[in-house]
């Protein structure tokens, strides 16, 4: 068992003792969301600024079915994954041929398309008021309505997601996506249909976002309009980047830092997005590379110090 995994398991156990279970759950949900984005951003080099499209669509569809048809929890999750993947296939199809700025703007604009559909389609989504009253149905006699069982459920799904993502990035697909990030022209010249691989990354990332979206809807019992808004897309990019997009665990750390900070600050001041914006600017100007890299730099520094002290001593 790797050290990272031990740390995560320890965090899963300790977290609900330190913060409210709802926040603890939100951390792992956001981490699943971040894992999905990082396959695109970190591994394939595609900066998608529209991940909330998949997150929100899945939350709305599964939430609607949970609310009106009282479907089973696992069916709801399955539907969320499917909706996330399908919406990502749609968006991905339009975006994968583009690159650079064009790609970013397109993912954002399509995000806005879905946002405005949700905003105007008040009969279903509740528009600005959100879609409230989403239940957390029992399963096999376990009452997910209670915070702690639901937390355990979310944690288990997070570990499952992490394991699946680890398999994916260590598979040939993971290597090929990284090859596309490194040098798309050469990857194509080697015989890979890069557009199809990028689309695959979108669909997988969308499936993870969808799972996160449904878990989020069940956690708070509501799908707020912001769930499909661009700020959510920006937050997950930020969380992934502060964690470090270069590694599998980066988005997990990022989600931890991001949710914990934003939850503690948001209770203090209603205008906390201002501080969030300031945090974005500071990180970008001074701490590029994220927590993982900052830690690596710190360890290298400690190592050097340790060595030099041994030489002199």
């Amino acid at each position, binding site marked *: 068992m790797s050290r990272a995994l031990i740390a995560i398991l320890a965090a899963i156990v300790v977290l609900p003792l330190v913060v409210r279970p709802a926040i603890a759950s939100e951390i792992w949900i956001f981490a699943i969301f971040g894992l999905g984005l990082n396959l695109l951003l970190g591994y394939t080099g595609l900066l998608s600024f529209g991940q909330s499209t998949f997150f929100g669509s899945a939350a709305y569809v599964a939430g609607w079915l949970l609310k009106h048809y009282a479907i089973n929890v696992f069916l709801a999750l399955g539907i969320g994954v499917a909706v996330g993947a399908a919406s990502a296939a749609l968006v991905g199809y339009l975006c994968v041929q583009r690159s650079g700025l064009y790609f970013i703007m397109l993912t954002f604009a399509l995000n806005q398309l879905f946002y405005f559909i949700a905003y105007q389609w008040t009969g279903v989504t509740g528009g600005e008021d959100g879609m409230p009253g989403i239940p957390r149905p029992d399963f096999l006699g376990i009452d997910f309505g209670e915070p702690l069982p639901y937390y355990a459920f979310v944690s288990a799904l997070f570990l499952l997601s992490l394991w699946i993502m680890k398999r994916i990035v260590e598979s*040939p*697909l993971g*290597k090929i996506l990284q*090859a596309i990030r490194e040098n798309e022209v050469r990857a194509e010249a*080697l*015989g*890979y249909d890069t557009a199809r691989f990028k689309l695959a990354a979108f669909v997988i990332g969308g499936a993870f976002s969808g799972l996160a979206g449904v878990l989020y809807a069940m956690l708070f019992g509501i799908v707020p309009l912001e769930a499909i808004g661009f700020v959510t897309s920006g937050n997950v990019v930020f969380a992934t980047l502060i964690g470090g997009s270069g590694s599998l665990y980066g988005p997990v750390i990022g989600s931890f830092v991001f949710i914990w900070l934003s939850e503690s600050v948001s209770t203090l001041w209603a205008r906390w997005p201002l501080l969030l914006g300031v945090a974005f600017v500071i990180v970008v100007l001074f701490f590029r590379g994220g927590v993982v890299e900052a830690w690596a730099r710190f360890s290298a520094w400690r190592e050097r110090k340790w060595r030099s002290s041994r030489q002199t001593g």
Partner: protein
Amino acid sequence: MAILETDRLTKSFGALAAVSGVSLAIEAGTLHSIIGPNGAGKTTFFNLLTGALAPTSGTIALDGRDITGTPAHRVPHLGLARSFQRTNVFPAFSLFDNVWVAAFARAPSRKGIAWRSADRYPEARERALAALADVGLAGKADRPVREISHGEQRQLELAIALAASPRVLLLDEPAAGLAPEETKKLVALMRGLKGRYTIVLIEHKMDIIMSVSDRVSVMHFGSLIAEGTPAEIQKNAEVRRAYLGGVAA
């Protein structure tokens, strides 16, 4: 019989014909060089062969089968692999991963592509290691690209092409930017590859061409102006004019 054949292949950019009516037949198992001054259209010709560019007119045939218009990502699966004039590798990868990605592209089966560990494709792994061994980089398989010299990067460039187990190897100035010592090594390497693959070589350095080629074609302003054995080309008056006219005058 010709394994690779073009018929009046032409590529125009606006009014400029970068490649103009090139009809060329490459015999199986030979090393066929294409020479010509800078801007003669040699690299554009390669880009047409590999599908990176679509020809304006003319056809390309492999084993007598028309492959014109095949998309770039399909061409390697037909057995055509290329190296690039400017080193064009995956910078963050180890040497092994660089050639592995090339080898896996031609794996007989991509079963389990998103799920099975990348280590568990023994066939791709062996081909990748063999390609590194062929260019003499087997000992550095786990080193990252940024730690090796320019000369070794040129060898890696070649290994990536070899790992795709091609039948026809298109090499675009493999000796570009090499020191004399490294060039010698590369020539020896090419001698070793000769016969195992059909090789089409673009090269500037006359001494390399004369010592390894079976046949030489000369391109000038997008057209073929001569073809023959190295000895014939050396004597050809028109070639001398093209070269001397391009360089000295």
